[in-house]
């Protein structure tokens, strides 16, 4: 009798785990992102550290697999590195993460992605619409430089050409406001940033000059 109960418990436990794996790992959605070989998108970045003072940057972001990036601008662009990462399809490579399924919220599966590389200082929550195989939104928690505080950024996705691509990112970050002569940051100030992304062009032939610049990176 005891043996049967033990076997029953073992069976239920295994069945629960198997069911859980089925639900929580919609890896096909993440893998689909890897089909993107290249893309181009128009971006507006706004960084605000003080009331009444916003820094705006306008640029075109070119991506080519696996991790080549070129930012085209008439001016200059100062982009938080963590925000830059989230724009790359390679960012969603399933084999880079361990996953935690956090349940359902408003019909969306909430999945936590924790980088396997211990050197990475971020984690990601994704809200996945499993029915439509799309990522709807995400929240990136990250640390910057020597700053111990954890910052976060909200990422909103839209379905573009069958892929889930970020169209708006906003969050909090620290911006250095003073440097010492040696280049080390003496003073930080917290601020907010937002990235608006529009006019995606996916898997296209880039002009020769852009290809050359991408291969130079």
């Amino acid at each position, binding site marked *: 009798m005891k043996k049967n109960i033990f076997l029953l418990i073992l069976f239920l436990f295994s069945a629960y785990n198997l069911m859980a794996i089925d639900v929580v790992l919609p890896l096909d959605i993440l893998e689909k992102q890897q089909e993107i070989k290249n893309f181009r998108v128009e971006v507006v970045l706004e960084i605000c550290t003080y009331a009444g003072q916003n820094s705006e940057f306008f640029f075109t972001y070119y991506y080519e697999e696996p991790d080549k990036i070129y930012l085209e601008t*008439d001016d200059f662009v100062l982009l*938080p590195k963590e925000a830059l990462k989230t724009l790359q399809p390679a960012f969603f490579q399933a084999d880079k993460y361990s996953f935690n399924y956090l349940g359902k919220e408003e019909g969306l599966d909430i999945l936590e992605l924790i980088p396997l590389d211990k050197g990475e200082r971020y984690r990601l929550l994704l809200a996945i619409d499993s029915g439509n195989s799309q990522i709807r939104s995400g929240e990136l928690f990250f640390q910057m430089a020597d700053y111990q505080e954890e910052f976060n950024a909200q990422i909103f996705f839209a379905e573009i050409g069958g892929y889930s691509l970020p169209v708006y990112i906003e969050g909090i970050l620290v911006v250095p406001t003073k440097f010492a002569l040696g280049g080390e940051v003496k003073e930080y100030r917290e601020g907010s940033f937002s990235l608006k992304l529009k006019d995606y062009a996916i898997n296209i032939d880039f002009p020769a000059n852009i290809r050359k610049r991408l291969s130079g990176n």
Partner: protein
Amino acid sequence: MVWTLIRIELNKMFRRPRTYLGLVGAALIPLAVIIIFAYKDPTPFIAKILGDMFTLSGSILNGYLVSLVTINHGTINFFLPVLVVLVVGEIVAGEEQEGTLRLVLSRPVNRAYFLISKLISSLFYTFLLILIMALVGLGGGLLVFGRGSLLVSGLLLGDEGWFNILNPAEAVQRLLIVHGGAFLVILTITFLSFFLSSILKNPIGAMIFPLILVIFLQIISNFPFFSEIKPYLFTTYMDLWVDLLAPEIPWKDILNSGFILLGHGLFFLAGSFYYFTRKDILS
């Protein structure tokens, strides 16, 4: 009467080659910055420093950056004072040395009016120095490197300074304010040199002494054990233009520094009038 005297003084000032030497000197600073930047873009230097947290793409080099870098510690603390004393230091003492002062004042000219006309000419020359620097820096910079956002970094100015990014419209506004701040700082040197020129017979002294004093006070300020006397030295407040580049301008501190500099200036001015109106002009 004062207007006539001012016209005569300006006329006299612009007949002297050293006036043009000073004005050309003021134009040389931004021109040197343009040449240096044409040779080497400062973007990689800043990108390397920001590398841990940010990716910097494109180029920070534009006309606004040229104008900003033109105003730096070396320019404000040393180069501009040299250009100021070159003309202001000899504006009264030079006449006394040449013997023309006695000749002019032997006519029915009010001494105070005479000194006011000299003072206004000195202020005009100081203003011209800043104006030329601003025009050549901004105009030349925009012509050569074009427009863009302004990346403010103390590291480009030889100091720890502020880090800030300004859109083109804000950049113009802020650069004008910074040049205004620089004018206020340099006015103190103008007043000091004018004071010395009014009391000394030898213009060399009125030229050299303000420079020696500024350098000496700057050296003293750098000793940590002299920190108690630092608030009493006018050179301490000569960096007020730096805070005008802060993301959030600390107006209270700037006004405080501005009033202290103006206070020193008025003290030198009062001294000039006090001594000059009572002075025996014997040669």
